[in-house]
């Protein structure tokens, strides 16, 4: 039925099956939108956040998906600026995933703030000392850049490209794509860092507070590095998932290897720097604030095992896997490594948000935990559903994987 919208030369399932695939996600989206609506209409009391846990599931997951969505800008940077042409095989998919991650994060942020209609205040009354101002500016502009990068992919649809004005516009956009790749890289660098800076500047929270370089705490640089390191891993994992779900080979194996190698090198540097930072923080920064480092890990479930998991199990281990040329040839190891690396960045974001808020800062305060309410979980699942739906539509009607046709024809085994 929708055959004319689908690129010739690729196989896609029937329209009926596609609709059947979309149905559960649409339902999930509907439920999630209802939860989101409840939060907007009735207020944030629909969540389980409170005065102690001012940030909850949403902020933690926002940080995590923005870190994972870094694959978009980083792949673009590697392709258009550093000219690693092999990555042309995944750039379109990475851009779509990046767009989904950022637009989803912005949507959740709009619900998370108490007065979404006042979002423009940050632009009118900016506080240049605040990391959050920087994040707001950067993410807004970056989302625009991502939309601009998405446009050519959309305009290349089999039917849309027949419209002469779309075609010509797409051609011109394509010519200036390196400008957007460079701008995207610049903006991403700053907002990934500022998201880390959000916590590193908190003088009042010795668990999060770090020393730094000029106005930037070490978490600024560590967040950038961890995002860069896990971006390629997430592109790898997402490509693999899509290829499993669609039962097609979408990229040549050496592209996976390249992504893993890049990720591996960045990860090992990150783990090294993070370890140094942790030692300095525990031995100098925290005691200077008057805190006893023991208090950071004195309560279950946030004890020292979590630190070990974050740095060693989900940081060092995937780095070593990726750096081994032999392991890079095996899909199993590549996927394991990628999942570990992505898990590491998620745990890191969790620690900086939830663990920071759970720890008492005053001697007579209790350690507190928080469990998200169903509205919070459902809202987030709505974002996931939105992402799956948008990606599925893009995969079906647009060319996300240029190598797919070649691989389907049986050529290009490498």
């Amino acid at each position: 039925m929708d055959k004319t919208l689908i690129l010739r030369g690729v196989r896609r399932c029937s329209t009926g099956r596609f609709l059947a695939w979309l149905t559960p996600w649409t339902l999930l989206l509907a439920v999630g939108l209802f939860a989101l609506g409840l939060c907007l209409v009735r207020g944030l009391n629909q969540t389980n956040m409170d005065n102690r846990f001012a940030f909850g599931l949403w902020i933690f997951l926002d940080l995590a998906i923005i870190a994972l969505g870094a694959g978009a800008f980083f792949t673009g940077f590697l392709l258009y600026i550093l000219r690693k042409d092999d990555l042309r095989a995944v750039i379109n998919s990475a851009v779509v995933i990046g767009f989904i991650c950022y637009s989803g994060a912005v949507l959740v942020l709009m619900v998370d703030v108490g007065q979404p209609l006042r979002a423009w205040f940050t632009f009118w009354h900016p506080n240049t000392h605040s990391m959050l101002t920087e994040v707001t500016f950067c993410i807004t502009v970056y989302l625009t850049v991502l939309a601009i990068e998405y446009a050519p992919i959309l305009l290349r649809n089999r039917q849309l490209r027949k419209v002469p004005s779309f075609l010509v516009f797409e051609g011109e956009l394509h010519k200036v794509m390196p400008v957007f790749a460079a701008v995207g890289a610049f903006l991403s660098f700053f907002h990934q860092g500022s998201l880390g800076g959000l916590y590193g500047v908190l003088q009042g929270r010795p668990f999060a507070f770090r020393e730094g370089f000029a106005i930037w705490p070490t978490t600024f640089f560590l967040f950038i590095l961890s995002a860069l390191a896990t971006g390629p891993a997430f592109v790898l994992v997402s490509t693999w998932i899509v290829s499993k779900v669609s039962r097609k080979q979408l990229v040549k194996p050496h592209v996976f290897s390249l992504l893993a190698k890049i990720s591996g090198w960045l990860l090992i540097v990150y783990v090294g720097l993070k370890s140094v930072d942790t030692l300095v923080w525990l031995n100098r920064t925290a005691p200077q604030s008057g805190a006893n480092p023991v208090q950071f890990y004195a309560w279950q479930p946030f004890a020292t095992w979590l630190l070990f998991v974050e740095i060693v199990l989900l940081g060092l281990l995937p780095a070593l896997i990726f750096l081994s040329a032999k392991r890079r040839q095996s899909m199993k190891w590549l996927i394991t490594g990628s999942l570990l690396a992505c898990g590491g960045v998620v745990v890191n974001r969790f620690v900086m948000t939830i663990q920071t808020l759970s720890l008492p800062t005053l001697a007579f305060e209790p350690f507190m935990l928080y469990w998200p309410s169903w509205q919070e979980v459902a809202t987030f699942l709505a974002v996931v559903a939105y992402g799956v739906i948008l990606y599925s539509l893009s995969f079906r009607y647009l060319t996300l994987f240029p190598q797919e046709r070649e691989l389907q024809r049986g050529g290009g085994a490498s």
Partner: protein
Amino acid sequence: MIPGVYEFSWSAGHIIFLGIFYGVITLVLATIVVASFRSLKSGRAGRAEAMLWHLDFEDLSPEARRCRHELSGETRSRECPNGFDCRRCAVHPQFLAARGESADPMEEQRIGGFLLPADRSYHRGHTWVRRGDDGEVTIGLDDLGSHLIGKPDQIDLPAPGSRLAVNGTAWELLKNGSSIRVLSPVDGIVLRHGSPGDDWMLEVAPADDDLSHLLSPSEARSWMLREVERLHLSLSTGFAGGALADGGVPVDDLSTEIPPGEFDQVCGLMFLQP
């Protein structure tokens, strides 16, 4: 943000921060505006069809993009860098010079069961061009193309007076739900449509005499061999490669024999619209 409102004052921090941001935003907007203006200019200059062909050509597989000189054995392995427009090619004249004069076979050939008359030149989109006495040319679909489409469900010919561009759209065919744009082999203006009895579809006044981008009948032979191979490969399913039996001749209307799901794909491959 405006000075004077509620004790706001510009500090170095404000200037640097806001300066950088509004600088980046201006850069992004300016780039979009420039791209829009350029596309308006290109659009008016009628370059849309050329861009569409450029996109389609890029999407073709490497096997479909072989240079004509590789096909005719004059060179080892060469992929066409010019979208099959040999008039723009730097090395095409060199090949022609090296070739010297060769006698074209005067009789028509039959390659893989498809006819290749010798009184015309061929375009890689499976059309042919025949020079008339008075400088006009006639254009038609070649034998492979006709066999593939059979009797079309609908034909959309350009009105007399419309302009054709090389590798742009000459006319559109509809068959079994597949819409095919037949690529134009020449630049020119459409004069007349062919009647049902004619073997040609359009009579065109060409823009110039340069038909060097078209294949001569002797070149067309090796090209057609390759095209038959491509057709066979596209009709075989799975990874077995060419698994059709040799020695057969194609039926009159391939469109009736090819499963509908694959027909669209095969047409796309053969008519250079991936």
